[in-house]
């Protein structure tokens, strides 16, 4: 009898354990993460990455805006390999998810508008990365598990893709349909987004001036006609906040880490100070002796900080804004386009745009204070003249694009203006692209090798090969 009981017990126990390969649903449901995402919240997160386009030492070293007071290796191009992965895994994957989402919430704004904003931002990020690295994965990128080893597309094709994304966005935006939510760049305003999209479309088109003027001209005019940024209030500005999470990159460097590592370069001061450029007081601090003194670019050793002008205090407050795409920039582009006859009007149009660009730049940087503008513009070296039109436009654009280093570096590569020289003792030229992350050789070997082999103008995967639009 006892045995029977025991056996029954055993059986019951066995059944209890074995019958239970089914678990409650909730046990393997992650309580720590949401399983659904809001499209506009994904977009908002992608927007966080926008400041990184500017808030970066390298970008501002290549066009020689800044110069290192110490640890000068960076200014001497010691870093060759740069990681582009974050741009894909971070903002672009968020945006791709929005673009492909079948379940966007209409309560967050018209779905077409959510998708259009995602497309504009994706195009903007793509443009940034391809200008830095050249050929990159695009057609097979952002496909997750479906494509472990994406191939590299030619930059030419990436540009075509950028134009297409911007065309689609421009066509689909329903301005009257309503704003989108959770957008801290334009507060959801679709007119602004539309103009911003067309502005980057126009700027990207101008990038083709050396390599494919035909296409450049067409795209430029298409974008311009669709409406571009036409006042400083529409500037695409990243507004940092007075809190630790959203603070300005340079504030952290100078005020939190107390690193007086970055002075403005002599290259820049020499092109501003002689002409009493009103922006210099914003761009730079005075040195200990009370003067604006630029630091020679790319010295081999540390200098006494007190002797030089550090990056201007106004630019490195906790909530100092970061200017990404601006009205003045659009005007400089139109000035150049007129000069190279992409748009009508010739030198007259070039000059009017040039003059307005300088004014709007000063308004932007100097908080709408235009004192000193007239005197500045009166300098013969500053005033537009047809003979040196392109150089003047490029130089003033370069001054305007201060701290928007990667954009400025791209314009320098395209135009070769203003004339910049690498550190004299270095024996290395100014970089013309950034090299791919070293990991890529290990995890995407075949495609990496093919990409390097397909460099449009040859060269190795280093800082010196040229991207497609940078035709030698």
């Amino acid at each position: 009898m006892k045995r029977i009981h025991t056996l029954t017990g055993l059986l019951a126990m066995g059944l209890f354990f074995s019958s239970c390969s089914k678990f409650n649903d909730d046990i393997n449901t992650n309580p720590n993460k949401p399983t659904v995402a809001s499209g506009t919240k994904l977009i908002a997160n992608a927007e966080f990455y926008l400041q990184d386009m500017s808030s970066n030492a390298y970008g501002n070293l290549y066009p020689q805006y800044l110069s290192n007071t110490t640890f000068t290796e960076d200014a001497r191009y010691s870093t060759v390999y740069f990681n582009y992965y974050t741009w894909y895994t971070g903002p672009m994957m968020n945006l791709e998810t929005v673009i492909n989402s079948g379940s966007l919430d209409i309560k967050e704004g018209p779905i077409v508008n959510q998708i259009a904003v995602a497309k504009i931002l994706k195009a903007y990020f793509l443009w940034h990365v391809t200008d830095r690295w050249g050929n990159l994965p695009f057609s097979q990128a952002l496909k997750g598990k479906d494509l472990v080893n994406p191939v590299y597309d030619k930059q030419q094709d990436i540009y075509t893709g950028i134009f297409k994304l911007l065309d689609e966005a421009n066509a689909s935006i329903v301005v009257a349909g309503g704003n989108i939510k959770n957008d801290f760049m334009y507060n959801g305003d679709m007119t602004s987004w539309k103009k911003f999209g067309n502005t980057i479309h126009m700027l990207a088109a101008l990038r083709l001036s050396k390599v494919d003027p035909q296409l450049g001209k067409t795209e430029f005019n298409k974008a311009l006609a669709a409406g571009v940024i036409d006042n400083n209030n529409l500037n695409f500005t990243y507004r940092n906040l007075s809190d630790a999470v959203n603070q300005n990159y340079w504030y952290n460097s100078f005020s939190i880490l107390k690193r007086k590592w970055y002075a403005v370069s002599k290259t820049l001061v020499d092109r501003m100070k002689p002409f009493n450029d009103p922006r210099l007081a914003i761009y730079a601090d005075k040195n200990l002796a009370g003067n604006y003194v630029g630091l020679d670019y790319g010295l081999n050793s540390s200098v006494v900080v007190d002797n030089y002008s550090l990056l201007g205090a106004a630019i490195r407050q906790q909530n100092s804004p970061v200017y990404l795409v601006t009205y003045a920039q659009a005007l400089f582009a139109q000035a150049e386009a007129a000069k190279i006859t992409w748009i009508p009007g010739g030198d007259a149009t070039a000059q009017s745009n040039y003059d307005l660009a300088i004014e709007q730049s000063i308004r932007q940087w100097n908080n709408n204070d235009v004192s000193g503008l007239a005197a500045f513009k009166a300098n013969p070296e500053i005033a537009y003249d047809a003979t040196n039109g392109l150089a003047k436009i490029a130089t003033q654009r370069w001054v305007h694009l201060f701290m928007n280093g990667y954009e400025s570096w791209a314009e320098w590569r395209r135009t070769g203006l203003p004339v910049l020289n690498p550190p004299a003792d270095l024996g290395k030229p100014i970089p013309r692209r950034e090299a791919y992350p070293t990991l890529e050789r290990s995890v995407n070997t075949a495609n990496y090798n093919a990409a390097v082999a397909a460099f449009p103008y040859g060269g190795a995967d280093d800082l010196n090969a040229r991207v497609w639009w940078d035709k030698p």
Partner: protein
Amino acid sequence: MKKTITLLILLLISTLTLWAQEKTISGKITSTEDGLPIPGVSVTVKGTNKGTSTDGNGSYSIQAAPGAVLWIRSIGFQPKEITVGSGAVINVSLSPDSQNLNEIVVTALGIKRSEKSLGYSAQQVKGDDLTLTKQQNVLGTLAGKIAGVQVVGSSGASMGGTQKIKIRGANSLTGKDQPLMVVDGTPISNQNFSNSTSNGADYGNVGQDINPDDIESVSVLKGPAASALYGLRGQYGVIMITTKKGKKGPKELTVQLSSAFAIEKTGNFMPLQNIYGVGNAQTFLTLPNGQKYLDGNDESWGPKMDGTPVRMYYSFYKQDPRYGQLTPFVPQPDNIKNLYQTGYNLNNNISVAGGNENSALRFSYNNGYIGGVLPNTWLKRNNLAVNGSLDLTKKLSVGANINYANNSAQRPTEGYQGSGTGSVQWFQRNIDMNELRNYKYPDGTIKNWNVNPDKTLATITPDGNKPSDWNNPFFDLYENLNKDSRDRFFGDVNISYQVLPELKLSAFARSDRFTQNISHQEALGGRNLDGYWVGKYQNTENNYEFLGQFNKTWGELSLNGNFGANLLTQNYSYLRQETQGGLSSPAFYNIEGSVDRPLVTSYLRRKEVRSMYATASFGYKDTYFLEGTIRNDNSSALPKNNNSYWYPSVSGSFVFNELLKWEPLSYGKVRLGYAIAGSDLSPYQTGYYYEIGNTYKNDLVNINTQYVPDQLNNPAIKPSFAHSMEAGIDLRFLKNRVGLEFTYYNQENQNEIIPLTVPGATGYSSFIVNAGKIQNKGIEVTLTGKPVVSKFFSWDATLNFSRNRSMIKELYPDVNTYRLDYNTYSKVDIFLNAEVGKPFGNLVGQAYQRDAATGKILLDKNNLPMYEANHDFGTVLPKFTGGFVNNFHIGSFDLSAMIDFQSGGKFFSWTKMLAVKSGQAAETAALNDKGFNVRDAVANGGGVKVSGISSVTGQEVTAYVEARNYYRNLLGTQVYEEWLMDASYVKLREISLGYNLSQKTLKKLPFRSAKIALVARNPLMIWQKAPKGLDPSDLSAGSASISWIEKGQLPTVRSYGINLNLTF
């Protein structure tokens, strides 16, 4: 035909005779040790297939004829043969097999087995061997004591820091192959809360909550053949700890008291130069008033420390009595050493054990205190253990094992920019460490060395008093505190019922639960924003287990069978909060003090595994053994429709010494095993989800964000499997005086669940996939010997040796590299990879560019060595490891010494790299072959001699190059080849000299035994290949799964002490 008939008749007669004379013999089998009955003893009639076994009361009965021989055997006792006489009752007492305690091995599920019957290697260490020198972390005490077990430890300065175990090489592509820890059958967590980057405090692995003084024995189940019964959790081996228990028997009480005190001294400092002080050029900086001064630079590439009067950092503080004064610029040769103090370690343990006929009880309490070698660091520890068992009836017994552990500590920050650990990396050779000790002026101003004075004011202004990279180390130690504490219970309650003499059923409820508190406070006045974070981490694991054990002997055939079921539930949660943007009120270390919205994370993880298992082990003639095990696991972490998996194993052994009948061979066994064990994944990796991003909030908007995670989960994931084969031979000669155990194994771990590194353009950094195949082949050898055995003098020695080769055989389609870890400094990367076709864990980084023909270094146009990226430096894992344990008994003295060794393996020394880069290392100010200091101008005969092949001319050249450019800008920044160290070493890890009070003396004292011992832990690194100042045996500084990098390693701590053991 005639012969056949004769035979038949004879047979018939004999059978008849036997039959005619057989009678029932009964009796009781007891132990000579305690007189208690022994259940499950095998009683067989020799030469027949008749046999039985004793019941729960040790009673048996069997049919046998007078003159027949009864063969009485039980695991752990010496067998006996008794000839049946005229009586019907034969009571036998068996004496424990003390000659070879090793014969009983605790195997999976805590089942005790005779070593003979095991078809796999299961090496066991006695508790006494683990408490020789009172190491705090029990895993660390296993170093060198078990073949195939590699222990990577950490400096004693970390106070119970991480001790990592690798069994039979790296069996996981991720390197995360830590064995399961089991104490008295209860799996316990060995989680590590430390950072995996070697930065921050090293809280150690929580497996150290077991009191080493409570350990009776540790057996290590090395391969799946041994651990297959743990199924999903057995892939990487099991460390089975059995604690000491009270004894049932005549009423008795034993009280043991042990006290240990040790002082801890730091040693093994890196040789540094004492000629040049702070600066990056050999010229003095001057103030506007013409005074020479030193700034807060952290390099020692400056002028000669020749006594020149200079303004030191303290002379720039208005609060300092020496404000404005000049002091001589002189070297401080011992400044690094002076940071450390003599630490101490006090440990007291008391245990009371006793029992009577039907109950046994043991109670123990341990109290430990460590005063660290770094000022203001300490650890307190309390362990309490109670275990007992009670026979309620003759068949029913209950028991419980309860352990409580409590720790609290204040630990140093390790790694780069740790509490003073950075001083070898970046520092001024002219700073007196004792000067920094008073880190705060009376008005609260922090005295910093890494700050620059305002040149015009010749003062360090309040705003300028912020160190750029390095805090005053004493500020770190006294103000930036890492505090942690843990309360933990683990143990079980159990009940067992002897249903039949052959069958015992038991049920266990096991639990391991702890609460870990960790906090860090960052004070105002240092290089970081002030702040505070605090975390509470709670873990509960319960195991409900049922086990049936069946032992039966039929003549010469024996069966040991077990079947069981287990329900595992895990619940882990934490709440971590961190201030943002600083503290609203200085030194108000509270989340409420956060200036911005604090960062709060709450987390919950749950998992359940349901399992069933069975084993059957057959023995024939006590000579041939065959065992099979099977386990089925259902894991809640796996995809719902695919969560049930089977794990089988089969093994066999053959004991051949008796068949061989060769006198010198006292024991011989061959064994062979094959098994499949597995491993599943932590929960929530099969579903898709989003992450919560930062918030953008100002007066106008409050925007919450979300983002797509960087890791792509996989709903189709399967558990991974380890297939392993092992074969071995165990031999003992000359009455066990000499022994050899040899094992060969070949293990393949397949389809591991890994976060596969993928190209970022996929949109993800990693995919969770089943991937790869990693093979580990190796041998393990244990040699034991007793060269001298006499009453006055005896010597026994054990040598363990193991060699392992790993090979990555497959990874993932189109992916040949899996990145395990990496480090970037000054934008230069070094990667730890698993690559197809290569041994596990190869380092890839920048190396010298070499001439293809000669192998010599290529030099550029300035005659500086050239370097290239992506050079494969080979695996970081050692070629072989082992240990050599010697015990001597001379009269009343015991002398024990433990040596462990490792050959091969690599680590990257960031400390050495930076000591060179910062101009502190001795070689940066050595004399060159011309007799000039390398820092002297090249034109004047100085410079570092460099030779190689010129890339310009193709010719061999020898040249002198400027020292700072060479060491700082080139070697110390770019050429990682220089900083990869061979990890080979031979280390005297423990030595103990004990004196046992003689019985004569003891008679006058109230003790049964008394022993006093002088001990030393880590007294000597006998040999190491890496340069002085680095310790290849102390590379664990956190939870990283593979220890391949050393950055700001804490110094070697040598400990010397005295132990006292008293038994009442």
